[in-house]
């Protein structure tokens, strides 16, 4: 289950403010691309446009070379922070994506997934009774169960403590190895990009325009030394972009 995701010349303004100023980006089938940029650079907006939630002023989103349907639904979004429905139990939340996708016996498969993602025994708990890590695990299970070929991740692990984040990084890498989705991950954390991504792109401050690809040694999973190298490259690129933003 993979597809090629291509963003072509995306332009978007919000009132007087330009948010996207011609963004081009391609993610090959089954590839994980991280987009690193400072806060407020338009990362979340880019994902909204890619997901079909916001129509761009110019440019287009293409899936496997064809135009993406203008209705959301083929690309699954895993947003920042809490995205579980507070009034549904954990199992019901995990089932939402599968149920909407028309998967038969979604409820039973959701209960299986709850166990597989290490949440057994908490099926009937409401989200507020679970830790932040467990909630993000459930969000991950829900996204996986929805069976979308393209995943868009918006700083999904930003609000977690370091240990929980490391556990979830390992978990999400496993899930991707199994399901091979095409992934576009936006983050402001260079370490997260170094751990999870095949390729890393860096954006300057708003408006988001040309993206700079940084050199990434080794394939995943990387050694600590390789991760440190990626992190340095990302920081260098961010500094350079920031300088360009200030002189422009």
């Amino acid at each position, binding site marked *: 289950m993979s597809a090629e995701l291509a963003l072509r010349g995306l332009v978007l303004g919000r009132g007087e403010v330009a948010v996207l100023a011609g963004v081009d980006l391609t993610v090959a089938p089954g590839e994980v691309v991280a987009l690193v940029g400072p806060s407020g650079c338009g990362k979340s907006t880019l994902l909204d446009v890619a997901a079909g*939630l916001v129509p761009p002023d110019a440019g287009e989103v293409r899936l496997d070379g064809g135009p993406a349907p203008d209705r959301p639904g083929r690309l699954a979004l895993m947003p920042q922070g809490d995205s579980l429905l507070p009034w549904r139990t954990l199992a019901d939340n995990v089932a*939402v994506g599968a149920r909407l996708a028309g998967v038969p016996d979604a409820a039973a498969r959701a209960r299986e997934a709850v166990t597989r993602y290490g949440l057994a025994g908490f099926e009937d708990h409401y989200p507020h009774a679970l830790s932040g890590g467990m909630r993000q695990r459930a969000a991950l299970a829900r996204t996986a169960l929805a069976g979308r070929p393209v995943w*868009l991740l918006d700083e999904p692990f930003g609000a977690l403590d370091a240990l929980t984040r490391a556990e979830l990084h390992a978990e999400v890498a496993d899930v991707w190895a199994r399901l091979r989705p095409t992934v576009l991950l936006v983050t402001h954390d260079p370490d997260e990009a170094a751990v999870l991504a095949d390729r890393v792109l860096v954006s300057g401050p708003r408006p988001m325009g040309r993206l700079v690809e940084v050199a990434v040694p080794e394939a995943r999973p990387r050694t600590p030394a390789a991760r440190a190298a990626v992190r340095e490259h990302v920081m260098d690129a961010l500094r350079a972009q920031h300088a360009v933003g200030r002189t422009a």
Partner: protein
Amino acid sequence: MSRAWRRLALPVLPLGGLLAWQAVIWLERPRDWLLPSPGAVWWAAWDHRDRLWFHARATLTETLVGLGIALAAGLVLAAGIAASRALEAAVYPWVVASQAVPILSLAPVMAVWLDYTLTQIIVAALLCVFPVIVTAVDGLRGGDATLARTVRTLGASRGWTWWHVTVPAALPSLFSGLKLAAVFAVTGAVVAEYVGADRGLGYLTEISTAQFETALAMAAIAVLGLIGVLLFLLVALAERLALPHRHRATRPTWSTHT
């Protein structure tokens, strides 16, 4: 404060009030029609229990029908206002402006046009529709945009998203409005009875005081208070049933929500 202490705290105020009331009776010995004793009110309620029940039924009917109409009309209006900027611009300012007219002052005019019961129902409805509309609009508008965004990308239609995300997110706010509305509805029905009625607890209060049966009037007022509290508790119970996640860690067995 521990649970047991809080339980003990609950009857302190009413018991203190009753004691002060009885103290005034003992010390001042006022005439019965001026200030009857708590015991006299109790016995008036017991002796006239059939009359009280008859009038309570009338007031309760007006209150509940008025509340029902306000709820139905208020929710439809609120859904429209929350969904459409055009409707909001056309309607919402007038909903707010209508509250500048004291609703109770409309009662005599309505009594000219309509029959008594209908007047009481409409006054009750007008008085309690405002909190329903305001809290429903705020609730429907105030939902977390991230939740809606996420389920939309999981393939939810706009309708599914509205019903399964926007509406549940609005319920806590709406229930606050409903609690206000339940209490306002009783007030509306009773005040409209003063204007013209041949039954109802407001009517009973009025004719009893006119005939110096103060004890019966006070008994009628006590029943009104009871009705108000009962309606409030009913809304609170409905809230607990509709929003189990606000009170518990796991899904209760009686919930069928999927």
